[in-house]
């Protein structure tokens, strides 16, 4: 929304001034300057509320977070944080020292979060694409299925995750009742899903469940724009369904895919809600992601400087990755596809 607002304001602000009015009656000579003044004020006026909110909600806290990364902020100086001692790069050094417990935890968590992002985004995209292709053909019950597919996306994230937490409970959860009691898998042992190695897999399942409807929605919208006659022509030429998918569908939805994958990757890499609700304030070691680690450092150890430094490092990494991705993958503005 802010992008479109920016674009429209830029277009309006950058528009050429109206030509000088032609000589004529007095009422004609006064009208254009008034319209001009109104036109030059209008875009700034319209953008002002959004700009105020942007500063209050995004830019201000972000600058504050960057400042916190350079000071030693603990509970001892929390109420007087403006006078917290400046420690330069010390928080970054603590966070990045591979010989320290904190540095080791940071690097292993970043690696785990990258793997997590690849798996969640990969599975979500495959499911979303399969759902979108499946529902792109006309058949009875399509509308009901479409609504059904969107349920996880429509549910509040907290509600969905807490339901999964109940289902994954080792002793009384539905997952073990189905897998162990009904299907007799895993022998006699009821596996733990929220502890140890399995917790990583459980977290992926919950995240994919919540995320794939978004991929489905975006891809379905993109598929609406692919002309059906292209498929008809390909079918007449003897192209198989897989060939049609690979050579028509994928290239035609490429712009939507580019945005979709970037947005899903950023959301997943910064994931906090799901581990927090599934595991509580302290995730199992095997399932600790970067955002919960920052939370633990900031609010568990009250070491806000270290938490701030880790946030800044991630901000830089994600910014570089996003810029690279946008330049390499996303279509240029003058493309017509």
């Amino acid at each position, binding site marked *: 929304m802010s992008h479109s607002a920016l674009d429209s304001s830029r277009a309006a602000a950058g528009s050429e001034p109206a030509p000088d009015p032609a000589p004529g009656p007095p009422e004609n000579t006064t009208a254009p300057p008034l319209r001009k003044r*109104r036109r030059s*004020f*209008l875009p700034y*006026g319209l953008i*002002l*509320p959004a700009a*105020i*909110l942007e500063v*209050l909600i995004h830019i201000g806290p972000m600058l504050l977070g960057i400042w916190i990364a350079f000071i030693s902020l*603990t*509970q*001892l100086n*929390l*109420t*007087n*944080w403006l006078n917290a001692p400046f420690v330069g790069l010390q928080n970054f050094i*603590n966070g990045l020292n591979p010989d*320290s*417990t*904190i540095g080791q935890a940071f690097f292993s968590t970043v690696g785990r979060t990258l793997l997590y992002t690849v798996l969640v985004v990969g599975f979500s995209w495959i499911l979303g694409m399969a759902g979108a292709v499946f529902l792109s053909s006309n058949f009875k019950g399509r509308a009901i299925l479409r609504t059904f597919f969107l349920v996880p996306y429509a549910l509040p994230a907290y509600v969905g995750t807490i339901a999964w937490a109940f289902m994954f*409970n*080792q*002793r009384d959860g539905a997952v073990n009742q189905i897998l162990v009691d009904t299907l007799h898998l895993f022998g*006699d042992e009821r596996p*733990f899903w*929220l*502890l*140890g*190695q*399995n917790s990583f897999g459980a977290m992926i399942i919950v995240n994919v469940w919540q995320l794939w409807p978004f991929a489905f929605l975006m891809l379905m919208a993109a598929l609406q724009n692919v002309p059906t006659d292209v498929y008809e022509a390909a079918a007449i030429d003897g192209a198989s369904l897989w060939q049609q998918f690979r050579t028509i569908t994928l290239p035609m939805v490429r712009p939507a895919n580019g945005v979709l994958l970037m947005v899903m990757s950023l959301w997943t890499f910064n994931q906090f809600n799901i581990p927090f609700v599934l595991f*509580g*304030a*302290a995730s*199992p*070691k095997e399932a600790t992601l970067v955002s919960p680690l920052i939370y*633990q450092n900031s*609010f*568990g*150890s*009250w*070491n806000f400087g*270290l938490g701030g430094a880790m946030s800044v490092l991630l901000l830089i990494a994600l910014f570089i990755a996003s810029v690279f991705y946008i330049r390499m993958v996303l279509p240029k503005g003058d493309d017509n596809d």
Partner: protein
Amino acid sequence: MKKPFRMLSALAATAAMTLGLSACGGSPQATSDTITYWASDQGNNLDDTAAKLKPSLDRFTEKTGVKVQLEVISWTDLYNRILTAVTSGDGPDVLNIGNTWAVTLQETGAFEPVEGALLDAVGGKDRFLQTSWSTGGAEGKTPTSVPLYGLAYNMYYNTKMFKEAGIAKAPVTWDEFVADAKKLTKDTNGDGKPDQWGFTAAGASVSANSHQAFVRGLQNGGTLFDKDGQPTFDSDAQVAGVKQFIDLMANDKVMSPSDAEISQGAQKIDNLINGKAAMLFDQSPLKNFGARGFKDWAVAPVPMLTAGATGDAGTQSHVAGINLSVFKNSKNKENAIKLAGFLTSDAEQVALNTSYSSLPVVTGASGDPAFQTDEVKAKRDALASHSLPMPLIAKEGQMETLTGTAIKNLFAKAATGTVSEADIKAALKDANNQMAAAQ
């Protein structure tokens, strides 16, 4: 001219809304005769706590004309809510804190020192149990919180299960405790696996785990910090203490692996009531027993390494409880101080601690007939003679988080595999290093 005017009006309205929204984050504005009070969840749930507190607050309003805007906050949220209030400087007038956080929060400088008018309002420190009073702040500094409810760990057990296992009396030493727990761990449905356990605990509760690290460490001759204030979580004595606790699941096999997932105390109490486990350590399960109509229970001291141990080795509990603080930024300080005095008065101490099954923290209320039951006497004995305050240092909050999380992860490891002494040492060493880095 009409259009620009309309547009300016719309912009002004939007800006006003924006400012209004940004102002919505703080506490509701209190009028001069209204104060805000954040209460911790001492009942069966938030509504129950509020219902039990309401008569006291009504009496306060009747007496002083000051209305109290009450918000009951769950224990999982309370620490962060206080932290947010401290950070923003926009908190309630009066609030409850876990007494183990008192020194950590004192260091923020956000709370009113208990001196002058506030000390007068609560009647001076000599009215209070001195063990509870000692939790109000760091040693040698003016406290910033006053005790409100007193608590201590005791062992509660299911008498029916004890009788069925042929156990006549509660265990006194740790060895007896483990032996009894083994007798009580049974396969009752013949599927070859235990479904009744000797002991139950909330293995995923960070704070409860840190309490056990403290108590078990002291019984083994350890401490969480040395005399210079440096963390010693991974000392041999601390490792031995934590190992005893983890071994209940890992080696003694008297604790269900499922307990590694329990994060709320109420769930372990359910295990005792349902007959899934026979013993637990808790500060105040009576409200849960009462709500479920459970009567087959008895209380005993938490077992020690040697019978009759005294001093540090005789520690069975930390000085548990809830304290009350007045926010320094309060705009209604006079009325906030009045509420602190009222809630710590003898009469209200009797009423509130009866409702919440906790201990009065003023000596004047302890003699009330409501507190002469065996359960209260056991709790009082533990609090008066067998408890020590958690380390009274500024970094206590971090210590709880780090040791409690390490034990939580060790229980998870025990539930899904095996735990060696080296694993315990490594986990506590990691916590120790993080603590040292945070100092």
